[in-house]
């Protein structure tokens, strides 16, 4: 079974799960909070969860597509309002454990830093790319202003799934994206670059699987089916 972990409001996720042949199910925080679940440590393989009303043994899960960037307090309406911030932290901790303990492929595996992987914020992507030796675009950020200043101009977007570039640009950006995915241990990665006078330069990245792009969607579907087989 392929699990698609997503927000209850993510209609794209539900549609994507519906497109996967065989059994696939969407798992939401609402399922984890309300549906009976039994997660064991160290005997994790005996664990069960409930997704969309169905009890699933974790041994049945063959792959996970993680489309949940965060646990949203608004989805935890079953708790009193004053309890929700605490329950957000608890469910986040549960998900980090659950996604780490599963032996099957998880795209992308959560870390204690973030549910979408090891990088927390745009400045950290810049520092990661720099540590990988990828040339950086002209960028600046400061605590006295909002966000990252990166100027204008068209960007080049490259996505990598399972170590393969699925939207090649035919430039050095393809190799940079592969390097970055390897260094950060990302199954899915989307990186942005700009062509500056000195060459292709890194602008930013994210590791939240983009299923709205038809090309990425098809590549993710193919990859999931392959690794889940």
């Amino acid at each position, binding site marked *: 079974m392929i699990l698609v972990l997503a927000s209850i409001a993510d209609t794209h996720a539900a549609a994507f799960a519906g497109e996967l042949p065989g059994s696939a199910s969407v798992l939401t925080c609402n399922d984890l909070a309300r549906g*009976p*679940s*039994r997660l064991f440590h160290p005997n994790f393989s005996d664990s069960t969860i409930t997704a969309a009303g169905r009890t699933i043994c974790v041994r049945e899960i063959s792959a996970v597509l993680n489309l949940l960037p965060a646990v949203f307090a608004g989805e935890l309406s079953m708790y009193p309002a004053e309890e929700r911030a605490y329950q957000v932290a608890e469910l986040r*901790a*549960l998900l980090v454990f659950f996604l780490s303990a599963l032996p099957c492929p998880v795209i992308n595996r959560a870390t*204690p830093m973030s549910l979408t992987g090891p990088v*927390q914020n745009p400045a950290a992507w810049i520092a990661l790319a720099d540590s990988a030796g990828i040339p950086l675009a002209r960028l600046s950020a400061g605590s006295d202003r909002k966000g990252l200043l990166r100027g204008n101009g068209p960007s080049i977007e490259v996505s990598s799934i399972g170590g393969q570039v699925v939207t090649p640009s035919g430039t050095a950006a393809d190799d940079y994206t592969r390097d970055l995915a390897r260094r950060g241990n990302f199954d899915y990665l989307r990186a942005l670059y700009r062509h500056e006078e000195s060459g292709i330069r890194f602008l930013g990245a994210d590791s939240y699987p983009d299923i709205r792009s038809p090309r990425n969607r098809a590549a993710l579907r193919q990859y999931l089916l392959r690794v889940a087989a």
Partner: protein
Amino acid sequence: MILVWGLPQDPSTRAVSDWLRRWNAPVFFLNHAEIYRTAVSMTTQPRLSFEVTCGARSCRLEEFSAAYLRPYNYRDYPAPETASELPSKPAMVHHLISAWAEYTPALVVSRPSAEGTNQSKLYQAIEIRAAGFLTPESLVTNDPAAIGEFHARHGSLIYKSMSNVRSIVKELAAEDLEGKVLGPVQFQERIHGQNIRVHVAGEECFACAIETDGADYRYADSRLVPTSLPADVARRAVRLTRRLGLPLAGLDLILTPSGDWYCLEANPNPAFACFADADCVAQAVARLLLEARLPLREAPALSEA
């Protein structure tokens, strides 16, 4: 140059800073309570560089060979009364310093990713077992029948947060569950034995036995006595600390009457100052920070400190 980011009145921060001062180490102390006066900027040209300014003092983060980071929750400090007095946004200060700290080649005690490992206690439990310690059997459930079965199997259970929020351990009593709407809760078999706190700094271990009757020694009457660890247990403690990517950790161990060693959790930024051997831990941390400078500049002979 060594960066220390924390509160001057925090005993652990002060203890490490005191040792660094005693060794005349060049230290840039960034007072976390002054976060509303602290500004951080990042530029990528001509190379990636971060600049920190606090009042009239400023420095470039890439000049540091080591850092000891013990920031607190800035929301605990009073903010300036008017927005115009705010030179920076504290959350951005944290983001930018964290971005540097995660990927710098400098020694960081501790990097944000390593520091984050106790945000999920069961994630840590996987690493603890991989390092060779036993961990208590745990169940996360919202199913009363499952709790009943687990309780019957283990006799006595404790329950505690899965995250590092409100992390207080309690022993389960039947009435605790009555009339409650349960979300997923973490239950653990209660392990009885000798509580031992171990601080690992690099390769060094400092152990302290804790005499207590409480389920959570932090909130019960307890007595701390320095002790030593068997060599193989010390090796496991160092291995675990390395697996978690931590140069410094506070491990909560239990030695059972049958001689088994359990590790309950690893504190990635321990407040070690209240334990026996606190001064030795502070000295070991300061030495780690100082030795990170060796490739850049000759360090003083530590034995003369």
